[in-house]
């Protein structure tokens, strides 16, 4: 059978080639069997295989790959037995690459799975389409257990219990609906802290990670605080100071007992090979951790903010992997936070230069708002003029909004307004006078007190 050894060489890699291609190999094997036994033409191939106790190509390849991956899973080789500093084994991986993790690119698959979860009609579509192969690419990182999968994978439902040779099914095991509809709401202070932590990173590190804190409610994760966790990344391992993370978390709990770990953050624009290891740690600290990345390296000239959840995937009864799925991320602010942010935004000077700002006096702030308002009104006026002069294509939606705006100005009778205005102004002026009077009295009081005592 030395020919077959050649024929199925490296079958774990090509086993998921199209059935048609594999069929050709089967034809060759059939011919050899027929020649070897000198069988009559009317003897069926299946009989030949049975009598020769020879498995078909597909059966053979399936067994071979099963054996292969079982060995790979428990291989003592150091390559597979890499350790994290907390003595946790990084699960072994396929030896195709030399990296610990095999990134698999799965957008389409992920989209399909998402649809599968959210709409039942789509589910039936999928069922009808059966084992339609799905090509998958980008964005998602699959860890180890997808050796059997590569660029082609099949979406099937769980009740198919057998694994076709060389094919892997992705199961929607940990794919709860909540995980994908999750919205991450981030407070600006968290982002400030992340940027600060990145600017204060060690000279030799390119990435900074840390813990996100806050309660996670149903469907919404509101991130109100975070801290940085020192870590080092090497080619093949991650050293995170998890004791440090625990200590800071405990310290923070003394002040804010409400804040819990909800996930972790990292700088950079992508989920890297090491992310899943760190994520695994955080999934022990809280249920369904979220992962937020802030692109401080400014790739694409933007500072992208993204959030992911990790979705477990895997072969039934086999190993489990996970995939980072992007979820919605929003900015949320308390009212005072917004006020502070608006002031801080003034440090963005013209031409991208930064400058200093001082907290403004109340009156200055109102004056500024007034000039901004008049600027906006000018803009609206210019637009209206242009539309009237037919220089600009009118937009019905804008027109409706403008009408609403005009109508929203309260329609006060002239004398009623004058009355209200006068009384308010009088009140305020009175209060100002009294306040000044009190100040004078204070000074007088102090001077007299010091004067009378010899």
């Amino acid at each position, binding site marked *: 059978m030395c020919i077959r050894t050649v024929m199925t060489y490296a079958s774990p890699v090509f086993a998921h080639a199209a059935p048609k291609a594999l069929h050709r190999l089967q034809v060759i094997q059939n011919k050899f069997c027929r020649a070897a036994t000198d069988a009559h033409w009317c003897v069926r191939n299946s009989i030949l295989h049975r009598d020769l106790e020879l498995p078909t190509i597909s059966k053979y390849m399936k067994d071979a790959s099963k054996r292969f991956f079982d060995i790979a899973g428990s291989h003592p080789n150091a390559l597979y037995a890499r350790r994290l500093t907390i003595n946790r084994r990084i699960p072994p991986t396929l030896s195709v690459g030399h990296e610990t993790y095999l990134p698999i690119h799965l957008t389409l698959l992920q989209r399909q799975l998402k649809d599968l979860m959210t709409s039942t009609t789509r589910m039936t579509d999928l069922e009808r389409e059966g084992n339609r192969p799905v090509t998958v690419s980008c964005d998602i990182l699959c860890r180890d257990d997808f050796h059997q999968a590569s660029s082609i994978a099949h979406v099937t439902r769980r009740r198919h219990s057998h694994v076709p040779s060389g094919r892997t099914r992705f199961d929607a095991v940990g794919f709860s609906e909540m995980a994908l509809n999750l919205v991450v709401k981030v407070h600006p202070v968290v982002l400030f802290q992340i940027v600060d932590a990145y600017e204060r990173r060690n000279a030799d590190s390119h990435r900074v990670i840390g813990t996100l804190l806050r309660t996670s409610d149903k469907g919404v994760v509101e991130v109100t605080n975070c801290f940085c*966790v020192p870590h080092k990344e090497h080619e093949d391992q991650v050293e995170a100071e998890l004791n440090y993370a625990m200590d800071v978390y405990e310290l923070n709990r003394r002040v804010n007992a409400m804040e819990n770990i909800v996930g972790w953050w990292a700088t950079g624009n992508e989920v890297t090979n090491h992310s899943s290891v760190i994520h695994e740690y955080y999934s022990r600290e809280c249920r369904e951790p979220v992962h937020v990345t802030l692109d*401080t390296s400014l790739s694409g000239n933007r500072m992208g903010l993204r959030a992911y959840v990790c979705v477990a995937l895997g072969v039934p009864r086999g190993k489990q992997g996970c995939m980072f799925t992007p979820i919605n991320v*929003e900015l949320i602010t308390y009212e*005072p936070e917004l*006020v502070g*942010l608006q002031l*801080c935004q003034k440090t963005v000077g013209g031409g991208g230069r930064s400058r200093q700002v001082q907290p403004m006096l109340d009156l200055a702030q109102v004056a500024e708002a007034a000039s901004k308002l008049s600027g906006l009104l000018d803009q609206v006026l210019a637009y209206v003029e242009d539309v009237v002069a037919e220089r600009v294509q009118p937009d019905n939606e804008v027109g409706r909004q403008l009408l609403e705006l005009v109508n929203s100005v309260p329609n006060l009778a002239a004398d009623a307004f004058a009355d209200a205005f006068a009384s308010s102004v009088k009140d*305020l002026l009175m209060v100002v006078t009294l306040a000044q009077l009190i*100040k004078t009295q204070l000074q007088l009081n102090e001077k007299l007190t010091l004067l009378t005592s010899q």
Partner: protein
Amino acid sequence: MEVAQGALLGLVVENRLEITNCFPFPKHDDTMDEEEYQLDMMRRLRRVNVDHFHVGWYQSADVGNFLSLPLLESQYHYQTSIEESVVVIYDTKKSARGFLTLKAYRLTPQAIAMYKENDYTPESLKNLKIGYESLFIEVPIVIRNSPLTNIMMSELSEMIPEEEGCKFLDLGTASVLEGQLRSLMDRVDELNQEAIKFNRYQLLVVRQQQEKHRWLLKRTQENAARATKGEPPLPEEDVNKLFKPHPVPQRLNPMIVAGQINTYSQHISQFCSQSLAKLYLTQALQNAKEAKQNN
């Protein structure tokens, strides 16, 4: 009222104090050691390259009520152990209305001397030339951001709707003004009590002086009479035994209250001026509308 407090971390560069980080203090609780917590926290922050010099502390406040004896005490201890320390006061209520209020204060040298001597009699205050206005000195605050932070903020500005954060244009004045005036009145009452106390003391002192004088007069007459009789004169030193000096009222509390009233009235004038500005804005709007209707 419960206040939030915390430590400020940073460093002194040339003639300015840069505050680059902070962390909150736990709520007062006997079960844990606050000092240890602070040290722990600072050690942890140092590990991630945060400036670990303690340069002051912050506290939340409502208008003028931050000025108090505990604040004076804490700031005294800060400033005597860490020379450059400041206290940053953040006004929660006013910021919630849309006006960010952040102020940094330091004790004046006179105030430190006063606290050190622990003598608050009018006389020593006079010698130190200290009054409610010279207790604290306000340090101007400037906000600076790194270029990377600015980039992040321009990113953020796209995520915030344009119309948000205009709450400070709210025309309603009654509730805020009422609250502030009420607090102001409370403080004025308190100061009034102190003034009455002081007046009573002065009255007592004057009366005592008169009595003393009378007694001395009487004693001199008596002595003169005794001298004619050839008896030894009675000692005049008894006067100090008979008339013990009245305790001098401490002036620290009135000074603090006066400081509070001062800040309240400042805030109220500011509030009124911006309210007037808003009213005139509305008037302009109304006038424009009327002019249009008349046409």
